[in-house]
């Protein structure tokens, strides 16, 4: 008994060692450094997609909350991402021509798809994702993936820019999608963690599953928008509402991505001084920040808060 009492400090140590094992269950994404350099400051990507699977009758999701977001998913293999890829048309009910085109796709015939590229650990599964590796043909429209084209802006030549709008049904009155509020989504995004390291040719990002696909929030610009080849990038603070008494829900200004030709991009350019925009956004990993971290630290693995930015998918009333 006396021995046991004397060993109490060691009990503390054992407790420490036992509990220390709970920290990691991460999936690694390895991206080619050249890919990261090319896309880090771009809003969109154009790729040739072999559509391997889409829902029966190309029926879009219902409209409610969470995954019932009115999108249509298609899984496939592409020529640019070279990862298990899911492409999504937002507000798909309002893109009947594109849906018909999807129904007309022929297996193994690649079609051109343009849209906001997105890397997010929403459906990472249990295996690592290595860009360029071969992977099985998907038998599901939502396979394990971290790479997306979402939202699509052009599908096989069909312009769907008008789908960058509030998500709703075609009924009268329409049913409106309920996105995650800023006070739920942003503290979560801000707290996400990852590790980043680089080899001479690749950048590895390891993180856990991330959620909250669509967020409803207000932005106030922290700087001037910068035009890039396919859109506009701007730093902004995030708020829950239009109230001046609100505190920003983000720790530091976040980069917002606007796709050229969409309603959000047009509204951004006419935003009055100090004005706030009520928007619907989708998070994605900020590859510009990932790149600078990887450049700085090279092969030394660094733990960081997950660098993210928001694709502005719609202006909300």
């Amino acid at each position, binding site marked *: 008994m006396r021995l046991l009492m004397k060993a109490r400090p060691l009990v*503390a140590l054992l407790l420490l060692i036992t509990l220390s094992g709970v920290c990691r269950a991460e999936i690694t994404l390895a991206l080619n450094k050249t890919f990261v350099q090319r896309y880090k400051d771009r809003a969109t990507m154009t790729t040739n997609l072999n559509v391997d699977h889409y829902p029966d009758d190309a029926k879009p999701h219902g409209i409610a909350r969470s995954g019932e977001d009115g999108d249509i998913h298609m899984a496939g293999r592409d020529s640019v991402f070279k990862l298990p890829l899911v492409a999504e048309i937002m507000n798909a009910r309002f893109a009947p021509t594109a849906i018909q085109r999807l129904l007309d796709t022929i297996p193994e015939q690649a079609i051109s798809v343009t849209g906001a590229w997105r890397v997010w650990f929403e459906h990472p599964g249990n295996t690592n994702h290595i860009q360029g590796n071969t992977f099985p043909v998907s038998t599901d429209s939502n396979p394990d993936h971290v790479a997306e084209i979402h939202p699509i802006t052009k599908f096989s030549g069909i312009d769907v820019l008008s789908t960058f709008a509030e998500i709703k049904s075609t009924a009268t009155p329409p049913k409106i999608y309920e996105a995650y509020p800023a006070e739920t989504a942003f503290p979560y995004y801000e707290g996400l963690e990852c590790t980043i390291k680089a080899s001479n040719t690749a950048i590895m990002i390891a993180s856990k599953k991330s959620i909250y696909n669509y967020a409803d929030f207000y932005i106030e610009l922290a700087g001037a928008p910068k035009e890039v080849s396919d859109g506009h*990038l*701007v730093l902004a603070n995030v708020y829950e509402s239009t109230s001046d008494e609100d505190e920003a829900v983000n720790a530091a200004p976040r980069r917002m991505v606007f796709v050229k030709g969409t309603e959000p991009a047009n509204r951004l350019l006419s935003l009055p001084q100090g004005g706030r925009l009520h928007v619907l956004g989708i998070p994605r990993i900020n590859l510009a920040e990932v790149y600078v971290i990887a450049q700085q630290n090279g092969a030394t693995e660094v*733990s960081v808060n997950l660098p993210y930015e928001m694709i502005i998918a719609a202006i909300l009333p």
Partner: protein
Amino acid sequence: MAGMFGSTVLDVAIGLVFVYLLLAIICTSANEILSGVTKSRGNLLKEGIRQLLGNQPTSGAKNDPLALFEEFYKHGLITSMMRDNRHPAYLPARTFSTVVVDLLTKDRPGRLDVGDIEAGLKALPEGGVKESLLAVVHNTGRNLGEVQLAIEGWFEDAMDRVTGWYKRKTQIWTVVLAISITLLSNADTVQIARRLWRDPVLRTAVVEEAKIRAQKPRPSVTVEYPNPDDPTNPQITSNEGNTVSPEEQALLGQVLGWQNAMQDTSKRAWLERILGWILTILAICLGAPFWFDLLNKFVNIRSAGKAPDEKPKRPEKPKMAPADKTA
């Protein structure tokens, strides 16, 4: 009594994690300073390139095996990457292949083709580069782009080895620094646990400071945009979580140290001391982010109001200047 016992065990665990975290932060800072002073990444990159190009005389210097290597470093594309004569930490594969192809075909005017590269290689005296690149060219198609890609692949394979060297070197330095820090400060885990167990005042002070630390940012790299009008130019900034505060230093002084440490010189005391040092060295090698995460979990368990996996607390207010209303 059982509750009190459990609480003390948890507080000792928090104290240990806190000490490990501070020591790991000190180790990381020392490693970064060392890496900067020794320019280790740039030096290793140069060594990797020396292994690739270092056994190849040129027609102008037939007896100098380092001739091609030296010409490589005199090329404008490479000198433009040097700052204050410091070797860059990275070299794009594309730049490497462009310089190598240019050196091989410098006497050939006009548009290049694969035949020019092949002729340039054949004109070289016997050497490692000639042998390797002729094999690369013969195993590729007759397309110049493909040959350049193959040369890039040759370089990237070598750079994977350089990355391996760098990683090993960093790991070795981490261990060396962990040993140094542990011995210099007499960071004996067994002794620290014993002090925290026996001294409730010290334990309480450590736990209070640990709670403050848990509220600080995670020790990591932070990215900010120095110019709010340029969202394409993020920069690495230092993070408050990467430094040890004066209060924490003072507390470390109370928990660690050599004062009265050698009173017991029995065999058993020495065994305990060595075990304590080894545990501390291993703990430091796990890195600061690991111990910070664990500290947060323990502090959350202790406060009992918040489960470890509850959603994260609201972030601090923006650090950057508020919106420029005229933007």
